């Protein structure tokens, strides 16, 4: 193993427990989660000197969130790249802390997408905001977000022989984890899931087709929710309450549709080698794979791009390893229940860091025995057209 850096660690975490939260605003969720995550770390409100935000609040978020929270941070980073924003933030927080620019970095997220009745997956894409060349070439075609990802699934099936049953195994594993997580069970109850139980591949492939070849159970929920992560310097870590979860590698990338390009390859193919290279570890050493599961196909593509298997072999990989917390081989996938069965308020990236940290502290409801290394890989934007990938490698002490 090459020498790993130990210059920043996740020291405080909190996930907003409700997925249906009428009467509370996203900003209030962010502030409540911030206070709880700082409490988890044994730090206080005034300790925060770095603020990271994905512009999910009103106005100029770096300014308005500082004012709303009551912070005067020395570092403000408002990188907004959709669901992967929080992996980008973690990467930047590590860099900023290592450079001595701040000591206690706070990442927050709050959303009331469910209560607002936002049709994230089944609304048309485009046609709002200022005119842009990209929007002008996409808006007329009725491409929903789900059909966007479904085009990747069709192409993956065409190139590699991947099947709906193989994709379904991803939903089966995450549902098994969700059933062990009381907050996920409550989420499915509150969001009126039918027949809340462990599911089979047959359940998935027999569920209603939403956008061929993706079925209802291939798709994540639309919930309310939020969370906060506190990342701190080694000197702060000495006094925090919980075991530190070190950020040992980070990578970020973009990918977009190109003439002659391959949409079965994601931005992860660029971000992951950078992150694993920095960490000095191999994908097969990873215990916990927290991978953005907006849809089953998202996970299939990312498993390949993160290097767990070769491109095109994701179907065989999920069949062989099962991806459960208690599978004897391979990584445990989305042990909180994932976006598919626990929490997806629009930008899931923060929950990937939260559950990875829980696993490396030994606090998960589907704990992988002896978990030492985790990867959190966020995906932002839309997989077929244009998206971001953020990879974070985490290690316990």
């Amino acid at each position, binding site marked *: 193993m090459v020498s790993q850096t130990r210059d920043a660690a996740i020291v405080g975490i909190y996930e907003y427990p409700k997925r249906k939260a009428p009467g509370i605003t996203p900003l209030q969720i962010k502030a409540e989660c911030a206070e709880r995550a700082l409490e988890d770390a044994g730090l206080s409100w005034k300790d925060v000197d770095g603020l990271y935000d994905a512009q999910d609040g009103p106005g100029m978020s770096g300014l308005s969130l500082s004012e709303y929270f009551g912070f005067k941070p020395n570092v403000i980073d408002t990188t907004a790249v959709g669901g992967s924003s929080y992996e980008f933030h973690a990467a930047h927080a590590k860099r900023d802390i290592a450079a001595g620019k701040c000591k206690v970095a706070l990442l927050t997220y709050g959303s009331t997408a469910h209560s607002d009745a936002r049709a994230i997956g089944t609304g*048309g894409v485009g046609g709002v905001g200022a005119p*842009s060349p990209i929007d*002008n070439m996409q808006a007329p*075609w009725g491409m*929903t977000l789900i059909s966007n990802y479904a085009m990747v699934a069709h192409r993956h099936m065409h190139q590699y022989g991947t099947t709906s049953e193989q994709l379904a195994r991803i939903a089966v594993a995450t549902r098994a984890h969700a059933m062990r997580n009381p907050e996920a069970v409550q989420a499915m109850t509150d969001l009126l899931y039918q027949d809340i139980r462990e599911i089979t591949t047959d359940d998935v492939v027999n569920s209603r087709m*939403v*956008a061929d070849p993706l079925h209802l159970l291939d798709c994540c929920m639309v919930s309310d929710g939020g969370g906060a992560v506190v990342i701190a310097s080694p000197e702060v870590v000495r006094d925090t309450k919980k075991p530190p979860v070190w950020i040992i590698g980070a990578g970020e990338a973009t990918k977009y*549709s190109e003439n002659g390009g391959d949409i079965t390859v994601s931005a992860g193919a660029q971000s992951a080698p950078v992150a694993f290279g920095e960490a000095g570890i191999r994908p097969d050493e990873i215990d916990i794979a927290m991978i953005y599961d907006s849809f089953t196909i998202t996970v299939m593509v990312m498993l390949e791009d993160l290097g767990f298997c070769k491109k095109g072999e994701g179907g065989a990989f999920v069949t062989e390893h099962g991806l459960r917390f208690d599978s004897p081989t391979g990584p445990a996938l989305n042990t909180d229940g994932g976006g598919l069965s626990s929490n997806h308020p629009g930008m899931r990236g923060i929950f990937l860091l939260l559950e990875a940290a829980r696993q490396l502290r030994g606090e998960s409801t589907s704990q992988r025995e002896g978990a030492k290394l985790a990867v959190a890989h966020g995906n932002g934007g839309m997989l077929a057209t244009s998206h971001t990938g953020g990879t974070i490698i985490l290690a316990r002490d």
Partner: protein
Amino acid sequence: MSRPQPRFPEPDTQPFWDATREHKLMYQVDPKTNDVIFFPRRHSPYTGSRDLEWRESKGEGTVYSYSVVRLNRHPAFKDLGPYAVAYVDLDEGFRILTNIVGVADPVNDVKIGMRVKVQWEDQESGIALPMFAPAR
């Protein structure tokens, strides 16, 4: 209610949409490098050059990938029934997002790799949307 339309002023894509009024499918080429540029822009994404030429496509290509949308809550699409959104690779080397039309059953009649030809759908504004139907 009509489909979402391209909106202007938007100078990068204006020439493309202007040409659709005459049912011409245009794309750009960098004459120095022969790079094919699409979506339309003032500059080449490969070199930054602004010295680009417009060319007319024959409008023939193959389906790269597709999905049949069963549910879209947007008013223009919600009563349309299942329809196919697709990427089509034109023979000149550019990839366009579009719909596949002219098939009885999009679920079973659209295939990756199938040959298609442009078919124009005129809009109230005077522009036309390039869609693609199976080549005869």
